[in-house]
């Protein structure tokens, strides 16, 4: 049973560019949450998707947007990249029928230069 997978593993972008990160949830899970983890910090909640809609959102600007597909996979898009967006982006999946214990993927390391 594959766990949560994310792509790409690493990414280098320039300020002002746009980036798309991808996530496939664990088999049987229908809810995807995205987190940003800056170096030396705990993950910070960005938003959560369920039934192809954003269900709740953390304290992140509109430059951060997402999408969920019918197969429950998800994308995180960040526009107009800033140096401060450099971080590890984590995807976690869960099943709406149980409490969210956050089964995390390995993350995508984004570096903005």
């Amino acid at each position, binding site marked *: 049973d594959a766990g*949560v997978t994310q792509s790409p593993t690493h990414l280098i972008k320039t300020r002002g560019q746009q980036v798309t990160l991808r996530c496939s949830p664990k088999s049987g899970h229908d*809810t995807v*949450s995205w*987190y940003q983890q800056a170096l*030396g*910090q*705990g*993950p*910070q*909640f960005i938003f*959560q998707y369920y039934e192809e809609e954003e*269900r*709740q959102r*953390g304290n992140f600007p509109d430059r951060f947007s997402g999408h969920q597909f019918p197969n429950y996979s998800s994308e995180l898009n960040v526009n107009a990249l800033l140096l401060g967006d450099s971080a590890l982006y*984590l995807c*976690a999946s*869960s099943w709406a029928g149980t*409490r*969210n*214990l*956050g*089964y*995390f*993927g*390995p*993350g995508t390391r984004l570096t903005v230069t």
Partner: protein
Amino acid sequence: GESVGLHLPTLSVQEGDNSIINCAYSNSASDYFIWYKQESGKGPQFIIDIRSNMDKRQGQRVTVLLNKTVKHLSLQIAATQPGDSAVYFCALGKDDKIIFGKGTRLHILP
């Protein structure tokens, strides 16, 4: 709002000894609390959780204690092994999102 914080950024423990990692949280109506382990280059890995109506829960080599009176959470790891070396996060679950603290790095001394 809710927040969690760990007492120590780093903890060094002799191999074979027990480790205790402590965490405090602010006033909240969280449904549950979770401990995660994060190894270098990996995402957080679920260790154990505890519902807010419990005060103790045990897993394999791990025990979580919840003291709601003083808003304190701890993770005890028995017979610490080299493979336990990682950053440990306590987190609280509320409204189906997870709120993390900063993490404690656990070093295992030979």
